């Protein structure tokens, strides 16, 4: 489970990287992006996950602020509102991951009785459901989820895959057995500021 892929953010954006080098700007220590593979959301219970520690959280801690986000099939919970005791909420932006440099101060949607902060349904929240005949679930590209964590810190997150191993072209029918495994990528700001790069 603990396969952490560290990507230096400044090098993920090649063009930006080159420019910075050319200008010889001394950057503040850049935050690193975490690529978390294959979070198992196929069980009957939610799989809880802490963005702060980058690890899963046992279900026994579900009533605490130790977790930020939880997954069960296509439903995603945030630790706040009706889902937990934390402060977690989300702002969904239609943009590129690298272009989100600051988390907004307000406007975070929390899970509530009418719906989730990250809405369920095809093209509503984080995924598209292809319907007949493939029934594939595909994360929407260009959706960046700015997350306020359970403890009130900030992160930005994107969904990469719903299938184990993040195959290039999953098929909802033939790959049904490896579905419900989330691959996500995020950048967490531990210092409590809204700066996300």
């Amino acid at each position, binding site marked *: 489970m603990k396969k952490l892929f560290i990507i230096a953010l400044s090098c993920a954006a090649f063009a930006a990287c080159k420019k910075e080098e050319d200008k010889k700007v001394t950057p503040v220590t850049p935050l690193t992006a975490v690529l978390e593979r294959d979070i198992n959301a196929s069980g009957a219970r939610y799989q809880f996950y802490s963005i702060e520690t980058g690890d899963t959280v046992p279900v026994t801690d579900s009533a605490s602020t130790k977790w930020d986000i939880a997954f069960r099939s296509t439903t995603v919970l945030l630790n706040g509102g009706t889902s937990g005791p934390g402060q977690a909420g989300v702002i969904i932006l239609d943009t590129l991951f690298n272009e989100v440099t600051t988390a907004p101060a307000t406007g975070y949607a929390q899970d509530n009785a009418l719906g989730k902060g990250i809405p369920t349904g095809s093209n509503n929240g984080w995924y598209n459901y292809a319907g*007949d005949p493939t029934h594939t679930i595909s994360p929407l590209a260009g959706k960046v989820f700015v997350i306020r964590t359970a403890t009130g810190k900030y992160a930005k997150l994107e969904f990469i895959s719903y299938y184990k191993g993040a195959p290039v072209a999953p098929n909802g029918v033939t790959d049904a057995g490896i579905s419900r495994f989330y691959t996500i990528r995020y950048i967490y700001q531990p210092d409590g500021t809204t700066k996300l790069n």
Partner: protein
Amino acid sequence: MKHKLSIVILLQCLYFIAFSQDSLHTETNDNAIEEIVVTATKTATKLEKSTVPLSQIVQKYIKATGSIKLADLLLEQTGIQLSTFLGTGVQLQGLSAEYTLILLNGEPIVGKNAGVVDLSRIVVSNIKKVEIVKGPVSCLYGSDAMGGVINIITEDAGKLRNSVDYSVQYKTPAILTNSLFASFTKKKVSFENSITHNFSNGYQTNKETIYKEGSPYNDFTINNKLTVRVNDNWQTGIGFKYYFLKLKNVDEITNDSNEVVVSNQVDKIHEFNFSPFVKFSKKNIVLNIRSYNSFYKSTSHILAENIDTDLYSDSYKQLFNKLEAQLDYSKNGHVFTAGAGGFYTFVKSNRNIDKITQHQEFIYLQYQYDWKNRIMFNVGNRTDFPNDFKIQWISPKASARFNINKYFAIKVSGGRGYKAPDIRQQYLNFTNTLVGYSVFGANVAVQKLEELERLGDTVIYSIPKDRIKPLSPESSWAFNAEVEIKPIPSKLTITANYFRNQIKDLIEAIPTAIKSSNNGLIYTYYNLNKVYTQGVEANISYQVIKNLNISVGYNFVEAKDYDVLKNIEDGKVFRRDPLTYETVRVTKKEYGGLLNRSKHSMNVKIYYENKKYDFNTYVRVIYRGKYGWSDLNNNQILDAKEEYAPGYVLLNFSFTKTFKDRYHVMVGLDNMLNKKLPQYIPSMQGITGIFGFSVNFLNNK
């Protein structure tokens, strides 16, 4: 006795063979016939005076290609792309196949599977010619003529000699066609009959499965026409058609107990229609009263061994009745046309709510003027009244032709076309029990949703319920401009046509609500998208020497969605690389427009006829450029390289030799370059042979 017969038929009433033309009854000059076109204006017009983009395929070429099915023939024409989703259909000017109206002798062919008339249902054996009008300028036909009209014109019994023809043809790998054609004229009565039988025992390309890519089938088409010329002014007659298809296939599926079992598919279609007409002509006046009645029934079942329920079951019945009257008055180059009519349709299908009946009335007016063979123009309008007279759908048109000199002419036309929402979009009631999603037609969605709520299911709306409304027709405005250059009159003709279609209110099903019981999505239909299509079609036809014709056609088309373009402009359309997970913004240049349209397509045809040795040969090269296949990266648009199907070239050749004026032997080789694209076009079989023989038993000249 004969008199009695004609009265009976007169009472039964009314039909009009679109082509039937005054005072030409016994005319057999092929050239004269070829130059008369009817589709664009609903009146007989000389091709060289046509004001709109119009082309035709005449019998000489139809026969020379050795085509059995209409689809094979149309595939070779400039500006026509076939689509094979839910039946073979035809795209014109970048509009999808459901926007092409297919007529048989001026009357619509009913029985549409998801909006498309399956062209593989139509055999070419008794077709005299096919007229193709592009753009909505033939709006006098009403709904569905947005992209254009294809009018299949069969032999006109009133103009035939007595003859009996029999032909047999075999097309590899597995289609055998027999057809018999007979026509008799005695004094005032003409009768024409054609019977065609196609038989195929199917073929397989992938031998690892038991499924046959070419399904085994049998189909029969019987066509009859009876025409009676009562006296100099009155003419009456009736046409009948019966079509039957039975298609079978097998496949292997895994059942619930994880056993591999054989599934059997059986599809059947019955279609019967009859079309009486009466026609009165005197001096400048022609009155046509015609009726068209069609009954269509199709069933499709897939059953598996050891499974009780059908894996797939579909049944569809449609009854269509139409009555129409048209009056033409012509004098000194002016032609006035007025028409009125109505139709009634009844549909029963297991996919829809109960039984559905609809009726619609319409009127149309048209005025044409020919000024000294220099300027011709045509204005017209059709108004439809669907179900009641509260709503009106208006389709005006205007077109003009300027013959600048004998080398140069310009045609300009514009008009509005529409497509009425189909039965499925209005009344569909479909639930996929396996996955749990439902699709409801717009007219029944509210009722069905409230029903679910009453049954205790919580329904969460993503689109407010009051946004669900009866659908408006999809509609378009179109503009066409064409230049026609004849550097060597009657030998070399060059035409180039620019077209643009602005289409709005496209109907699409999108998720409206979610059932909380099973998280099942509920879709319904809305008038949503706005798209445009534009392009250029160019044709060169050159008679190099007598009996040697070369033609070249080129078509450029693009079709794009305005919302997508706007979103791209706003930087809201993205694409993720599945390997690096990097997301980038899609650029306007990368947006490939609507799927299944080749930006570039081309054809070259060479026809040679040798009168001395009585043979002809016809070589056709058909190029279709790459086209959008499917959205693989899930951003709902065509943008990445791998989302395109590759282009291809077909080389088709045929040779026909005639012996003693009555025996014809035909040999054809289609797809001589042996092109195969199993992933995209399973029916493309590689090289295909066609062997045909026909004989004319009786031919009173």
